[in-house]
């Protein structure tokens, strides 16, 4: 073997070895590349699967399962991208609202809500629709110092946040964070996140629509139930219904406190109703003043309060109440009150819609307040008028009432002076003295009765309903007018039915009605040639459910065409009459659930009558 041959052989051998080695290496390479490609393909496939699953899941999910689907989707994304924490912040009215969060097992849970105060730079950029991405916190710019400190405090080392918007205002933010170690967020990841975020955005949009629809429905339901409850509420039930209404509103809004304030005409606080603790409006002069000017006051953060609201600010701090929203209640352009809601916990954004809703609810409360004020005013006027009517009727009786009181006083004086004279005699007839004393006592009682009857009728008091015997009521009046009848030369008689069921009513007011009818009867017999003047007061059973009182006179009668008019205010045929007697009488009878009417008698004169329902505890 020559050297040349050997060399050739060696070269050939080396060549073979090298080429085989190369082949092996190439083959190895090819395998690795193929594997990589396969892995890449597989990964790509997994992503596509995730994306389609996520999209399908978020699109086909029912409204009630949407939150669970969002949470599930977020977990898949976190796992897929190997992040430690993930958040999905759903924005409401451009501000962070509900947060869905997901953390790897063993990781600390994220804060419940994205606090714009702690992450101002981040919030500001996201609000502009820009993504936030950093691998290390020291990548954050100078102006993000607050954010950096906050990130470091919660342990976030790397982070990516993408704003979600389906072509409109920001709907939410999708964020991923690394806690265990720093990591990069290559463009590829961002691109994928962007694809995923579209599915989240459309789901959030849907969620928002559903929620808003549901909330609108809830609001309309609340409003109509409040309207129903408050539109027919009578004054005695007012407090209870307002309290219940406020509770419903507070629950609906998810706030902690709610108050209804009523202002008087001169702008002072008349009353307030509150859910939970109410702070005196005096503690919030700035807010109260603005409410009274008809302004809506919405305070989301204490920082919003102007300098002149120093007292209010102090009160917010004292009561540890944070945001407050107050709407004025207007009736006919006049501020009659205000609705105030506040939370004890976090400061919260107030959407324009919320204020609009509060204003709508405010209308319901305003109407209720106005109606209550109107009702109370009417009631007060009615009582005032009733009292005036009574006093004026008694005024007509003044002369005869003085006589009524004078009679027993005369008897008492004469008896006492006679007794003094008898005592001066040598022999005192004790039997006679006893007789005189017992007469004096009787007359004293008689005078006392007159005064008592008068005092009752002159009294200005609230209506007091009680079970009454109608004959007693009528009898009292008959005693009262007895002297007046004598003076007017009228023969009065009582025809009282026995065994009448009791009625429910105000004794004084019913006496007033009878008194008015009797005085009217007297007046009708005033003509000098009236002939025999007779007046009959009669009680009778009307039917199973009512009793009847009649006052029949032998006077001039009523003009048939005036029968309806004479119950109207200011209708009078008397020169000195107020023209209110019959009007008041009708008002009183109506309030007692009865009817007042008049008709001419067959043989001259007129008969006025009224009915009263039988007291329910005495229906037979």
């Amino acid at each position: 073997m020559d050297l040349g041959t050997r060399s050739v052989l060696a070269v050939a051998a080396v060549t073979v070895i090298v080429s085989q080695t190369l082949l092996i290496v190439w083959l190895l390479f090819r395998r690795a590349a193929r594997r990589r490609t396969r892995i890449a393909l597989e990964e790509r496939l997994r992503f596509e699967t995730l994306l389609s699953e996520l999209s399908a899941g978020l699109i086909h999910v029912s409204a009630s399962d949407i939150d669970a689907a969002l949470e599930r989707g977020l977990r898949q994304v976190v796992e897929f991208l190997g992040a430690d924490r993930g958040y999905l912040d759903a924005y409401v009215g451009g501000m962070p609202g509900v947060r869905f969060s997901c953390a790897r097992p063993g990781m600390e849970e994220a804060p419940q809500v994205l606090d714009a105060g702690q992450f101002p730079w981040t919030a500001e950029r996201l609000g502009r629709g820009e993504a936030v991405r950093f691998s290390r916190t020291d990548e954050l710019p100078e102006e993000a110092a607050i954010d950096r400190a906050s990130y470091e405090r919660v342990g976030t080392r790397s982070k990516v946040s993408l704003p979600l918007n389906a072509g409109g205002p920001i709907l939410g933010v999708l964020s991923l964070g690394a806690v265990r170690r720093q990591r990069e967020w290559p463009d590829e990841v961002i691109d994928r996140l962007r694809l995923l975020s579209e599915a989240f955005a459309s789901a959030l949009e849907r969620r928002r629509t559903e929620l808003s629809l549901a909330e609108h429905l809830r609001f309309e339901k609340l409003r109509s139930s409040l309207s129903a409850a408050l539109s027919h509420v009578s004054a005695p039930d007012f407090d209870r219904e307002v309290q219940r209404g406020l509770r419903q509103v507070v629950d609906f809004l998810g706030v902690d406190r709610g108050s209804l304030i009523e202002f008087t005409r001169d702008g002072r606080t008349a009353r307030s109703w509150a859910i939970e603790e109410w702070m005196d409006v005096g503690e919030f002069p700035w807010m109260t003043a603005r409410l009274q000017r008809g302004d809506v006051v919405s305070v989301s953060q204490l920082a919003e309060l102007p300098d002149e609201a120093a007292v209010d600010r102090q009160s917010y701090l004292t009561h540890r109440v944070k945001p407050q929203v107050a709407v004025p209640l207007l009736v006919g352009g006049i501020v009659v009150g205000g609705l105030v809601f506040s939370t004890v916990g976090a400061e919260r954004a107030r959407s324009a819609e919320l204020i609009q809703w509060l204003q709508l609810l405010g209308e319901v409360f305003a109407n209720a307040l106005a109606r209550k004020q109107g009702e109370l005013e009417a009631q007060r006027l009615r009582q005032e008028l009733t009292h005036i009517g009574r006093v004026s009727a008694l005024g007509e009786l003044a002369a005869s009432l003085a006589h009524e009181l004078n009679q027993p006083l005369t008897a008492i004086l004469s008896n006492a002076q006679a007794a003094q004279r008898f005592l001066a005699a040598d022999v005192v007839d004790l039997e006679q003295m006893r007789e005189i004393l017992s007469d004096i006592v009787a007359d004293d009682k008689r005078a006392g009765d007159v005064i008592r009857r008068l005092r009752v009728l002159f009294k200005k008091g609230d209506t007091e309903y009680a079970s009454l015997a109608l004959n007693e009521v009528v009898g009292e009046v008959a005693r009262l007018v007895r002297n007046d009848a004598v003076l007017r030369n009228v023969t009065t008689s009582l025809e009282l039915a026995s065994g009448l069921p009791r009625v429910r009513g105000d004794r004084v007011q019913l006496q007033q009605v009878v008194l008015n009818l009797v005085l009217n009867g007297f007046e009708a017999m005033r003509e000098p040639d009236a002939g025999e003047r007779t007046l009959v007061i009669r009680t009778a059973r009307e039917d199973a459910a009512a009793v009847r009182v009649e006052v029949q006179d032998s006077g001039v009668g009523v003009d048939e065409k005036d029968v309806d008019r004479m119950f109207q205010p200011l209708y009078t045929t008397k020169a000195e009459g107020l023209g209110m007697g019959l009007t008041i009488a009708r008002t009183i009878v109506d309030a007692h659930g009865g009817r007042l009417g008049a008709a001419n008698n067959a043989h001259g004169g007129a008969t006025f009558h009224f009915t009263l329902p039988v007291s329910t505890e005495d229906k037979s």
Partner: protein
Amino acid sequence: MTAAPPMVFVVDDDPSVRKSLTRLIRSAGHAFEAFASAREFLARERHPGPCCLVLDVRMPGLSGLDLQEALAGAGRRMSIVFVTGHGDVPMSVKAMKGGAVDFLTKPVDDKDLLAAIERCVARDMHDRGAEARITEIQERVQMLTPRETEVFALVVTGMLNKQIAFELRISEKTVKVHRARVMEKMRAGSVAELVRLADRVGVIVPKS
């Protein structure tokens, strides 16, 4: 003329006032009778002796003033003390014009009432005397013949016999005779006395 003791009548519709007033009257030692209404009193026969009526103004049916009027209408002169709960001026004026002795307001003080009753009885006795005298004079006038009455009526006007004779178309002598008979029947001592008597009974001057 019988000398009956003074009697006090009380008319008041209010039983307890009536009773107390009569007690007071009894305590002063007067005889009394009480009535519940004006009609009741009118039904009672006339009291022959001196009396006094204590009368309530306001009563059902006939009032006190009505009773005063009814008595006057029936020619029953009575001395009346009115008592009233509400003495208004027109009412008291009417009562006093009708001859009331007093008009007292309730409650009445015993001294006022008893003093008024005393005055009332005194007035009644006085009136009664005057009444008796007038009755006597009237009786004398009744005794005159128609012609004598004519002469009487003309004498008191101050006419001379001659004028009377001319007026009555009789002789002066006949006038003198009639005149003497008139003076005798009327028991008048002078023309002046005759004029006074005529004044008392109110002889109507015949028309010329």
